[in-house]
């Protein structure tokens, strides 16, 4: 037997082993990802008023009913929603403007600015929350809702800018030059050429903003006050104070809602595009 064929043989079983390991790893990952979801669903249907062993002896919708009857969920959800929507609105406008300015190449120090704008991504949320609390107190901003809005903008803006920059980078600068030489002023060129081409980036940024803002506990914990509590903070607080599986019910409802949103996005825009760089580039790749 020649050495060559021996090597080929060994390569073959090694490949098979590697392939098997990858599949096993995928399987384990999937189980660890899905198991908590399954547990949450089961727990949300638990009929017992205490945390017992799984599976529960009987099922009930009591925790779902409690979501709609309890007095703290409605207001805190409203607070969360207002804060998230303000963050989305500001990110979609100011974030887009920042991304356009940074990628234009005409702004001095744009690289430094880009780093600064993206730095909240690497600073731990607890640090941001605590730091914000101190700074805002110094500035005299003591209202919970104001603090929450500012805090959520700080933690979500990097995602919005990043998503927008990704779709801008793929764009040909000559397109805006073409618009200008054809007679469109800066604003008209932005409206008719840049904006349609980075739409996907803005939508992606908005989705990230919404998701992160609605989900945040670590930063919000420092910024809430008695009148303005976000839903995640309220849930955590209540679960500590008294045993309450409403959190599981809400988790399941959020899951269903998210799945619905993803489905809609996939049907209308294509989820790979939303996650990917931008409408124009992915269209080119697809064709």
């Amino acid at each position: 037997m020649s050495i060559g064929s021996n090597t080929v043989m060994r390569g073959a079983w090694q490949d098979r082993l590697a392939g098997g390991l990858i599949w096993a790893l995928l399987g384990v990952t999937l189980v660890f990802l899905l198991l908590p979801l399954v547990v949450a669903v089961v727990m949300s249907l638990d009929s017992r008023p205490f945390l017992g062993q799984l599976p529960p002896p009987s099922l009930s919708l009591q925790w779902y009913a409690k979501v709609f009857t309890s007095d703290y969920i409605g207001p805190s959800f409203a607070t969360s929603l207002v804060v998230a929507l303000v963050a989305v609105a500001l990110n979609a406008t100011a974030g887009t403007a920042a991304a356009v300015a940074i990628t234009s190449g005409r702004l001095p120090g744009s690289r430094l600015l880009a780093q600064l704008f993206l730095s909240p991504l690497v600073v731990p949320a607890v640090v941001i929350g605590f730091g914000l609390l101190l700074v805002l107190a110094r500035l005299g901003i003591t209202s919970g809702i104001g603090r929450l809005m500012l805090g959520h903008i700080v933690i979500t803006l990097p995602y919005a800018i990043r998503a927008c920059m990704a779709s801008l980078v793929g764009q040909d600068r000559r397109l805006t030059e073409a618009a200008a030489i054809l007679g469109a002023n800066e604003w008209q060129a932005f409206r008719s050429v840049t904006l349609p081409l980075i739409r996907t980036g803005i939508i992606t940024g908005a989705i990230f903003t919404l998701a992160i803002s609605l989900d945040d506990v670590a930063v919000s914990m420092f910024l809430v006050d008695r009148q303005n509590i976000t839903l995640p903070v309220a849930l955590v607080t209540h679960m500590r104070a008294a045993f309450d599986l409403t959190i599981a019910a809400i988790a399941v409802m959020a899951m269903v809602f998210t799945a619905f949103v993803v489905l809609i996005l996939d049907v209308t825009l294509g989820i790979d595009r939303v996650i990917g760089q931008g409408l124009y580039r992915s269209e080119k790749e697809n064709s």
Partner: protein
Amino acid sequence: MTDTLEFDAVTKQFGAVTALDGVGFSVKQGETIALLGPSGCGKTTILRLIAGFEQPDAGRVLLGGRDMAGLRPYQRNVGLLFQHYALFPHMTVAENIAYGLRYRGTPKAEVAARVTEMLRLVRLEGMADRRPDQLSGGQQQRVALARAMATRPELLLLDEPLSALDARLRQDLRTELRDLLAETGTTAIVVTHDQEEAMSLGQRIFVMRAGRILQQGIPDEVYWQPQDRFTAEFMGRVNWLDGSFVTGAAGPVFRTPGGWEIAVPALPSGQAGATELCLRPESIEMVGADHGIRTDTGTMRGVLEQTTLLGPTRILSVRLSDGQSVEVAMPNRSQAMLQVGSFVMLAVNGHNGAFFGA
């Protein structure tokens, strides 16, 4: 009548690099000029200054007699065909063409009529609702041209208009483009690094290098009478013959060290010390095999060292008996006698030569 475009001693710096160094020229109405030069010679900067993407550091750019200083691109009536077309990918062909009209307050009915007219002009009828990515390169180029011309600009700028196309298509579109510019009476500036494109499209050629215009003139003049080595070599293949200019029995001649004499129209006047004759390969003809009979004025002898086939023409490399090497271009017809290593007789037409000092 005022010129459509006038460059008045324009200088433009990018950091430490001087892109344009006091460039001045003018373009008459209805004329097509070609800015020819290697990349980095400043030709694209000229185009960007006219478009208003850049502002001159010194000097003036006048369009139709008006100083363009401080005017934004959309305040000028200039059309621009981009090298890679820069079509709006999210718009149809018709929307692309109508774009400029939209922002110039053209009435709706007139926009539709103009789009139809432009589509006919670039022979893309029936493509109005396609998107740019559904078109071939040549079709995209035509849409870009239609878009640039739809607003009837005072001046049309074409940035390497054909360089993104393959060779065959480039030749077809070159003719088409020239006819279109003539038909519409458009004043145009073609920026290119391709001397064939410059000669076929430009009624006048401006050869550029390092931020300056070296020479300008009609294509034949620039091709046959280059005023410097760079222009001579940039315009096409060229031979440099060493020798001296003397007055022979029948008039002025150029004499090579090997004793060959080539009749020239006149002795170089301005370039007193001229010692080089610049000859295009097609100014030399291969007469036939050398039988060593005679040495007339205008003939040279040498050994055929190499032949290179370029389709319609064949380039012969001949080592003259005085050691100099020349390239001869001949129509690719008879190849039976072309034996490498054989002695050949050449006939030289010195009347198309240019002179250079050492």
